[in-house]
């Protein structure tokens, strides 16, 4: 098996462990959409969400430093970034979750809403990349 699959698997295990720990210790679902919204727009009533959000970049920073893995490249037109970011924000808030809340935790809970949501966003993601490929 290629090494990147194993690293991906290990990264996935780390994500799963973090989600389980957040439920066991704090009693909350590790759904980044909700945590980010609460942490950014209602920080006073959700200080735990602020703490979690601060941890995300720290953890990513730690991985790249400890493993000496270079930071991935990003180079997209600004209008495309804004459009994509806005659509992700509207979609995740409207659909009450993203890859973490619906994908990792929701499927783990066997929630019908999350299973349906995950199937839909994976499908439209594939279709979007397919259409981009046709146009480029």
């Amino acid at each position, binding site marked *: 098996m290629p090494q*990147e*699959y194993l690293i*991906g*698997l290990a990264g*996935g*295990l*780390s*994500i*799963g462990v*973090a*989600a*389980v*720990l*957040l*439920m066991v*210790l*704090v*009693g909350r*679902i*590790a759904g980044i*959409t909700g945590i*980010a*919204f609460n942490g950014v*727009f209602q920080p006073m009533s959700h200080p735990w*969400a602020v*703490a*979690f959000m601060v*941890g*995300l*970049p720290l*953890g990513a920073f*730690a*991985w790249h430093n400890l493993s000496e*893995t270079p930071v*991935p490249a*990003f*180079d*997209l037109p*600004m209008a495309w*970034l804004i459009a994509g*970011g806005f*659509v*992700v924000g*509207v979609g995740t808030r*409207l*659909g009450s979750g993203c*890859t*973490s809340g619906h*994908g*990792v*935790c929701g499927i*783990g*809970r066997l929630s019908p809403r999350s299973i*349906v949501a995950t199937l839909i*966003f*994976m499908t*439209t993601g*594939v279709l979007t990349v*397919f259409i*981009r490929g046709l146009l480029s």
Partner: protein
Amino acid sequence: MKLLAASLFCGIVFGFGLAMSGMTDIARVIGFFDIFGNWDPTLMFVMGGALMVSLPFFQLGLGRLKAPVFSDMFRLPTRRDIDVRLVSGAALFGIGWGMVGLCPGPAFAALSYMNLDILIFTVAMMAGMFVVDLVDNLVTGEQASA
């Protein structure tokens, strides 16, 4: 204080896993969606790894616990209905994710890369979330005054 430290620790482990797994690498994410082209199956292993932990915990472990260590109760979603908001929201999210290759967790984790592109994406994403609540509040306000 212990609650905040625990939450911070969970965020660090989560962000570590996101960066390690390649979720913050837009080329890898787009490659995963590119099943009709040059498909990169790595993210399947990421999802598999995460579910190997979360599925047994939520199905077998959580029910044996009375309360979280640092707070009063477990807060779990209770809704089971599939409505238009869920379906259209998920569809839109997938489109945006396929456009750029970043979903919300990796967007915040990747802020540590100090790259302006990621900051722009993340601010636009939070604006999108804000607009949904703004419209919701306008609609409920009109209903209340009607």
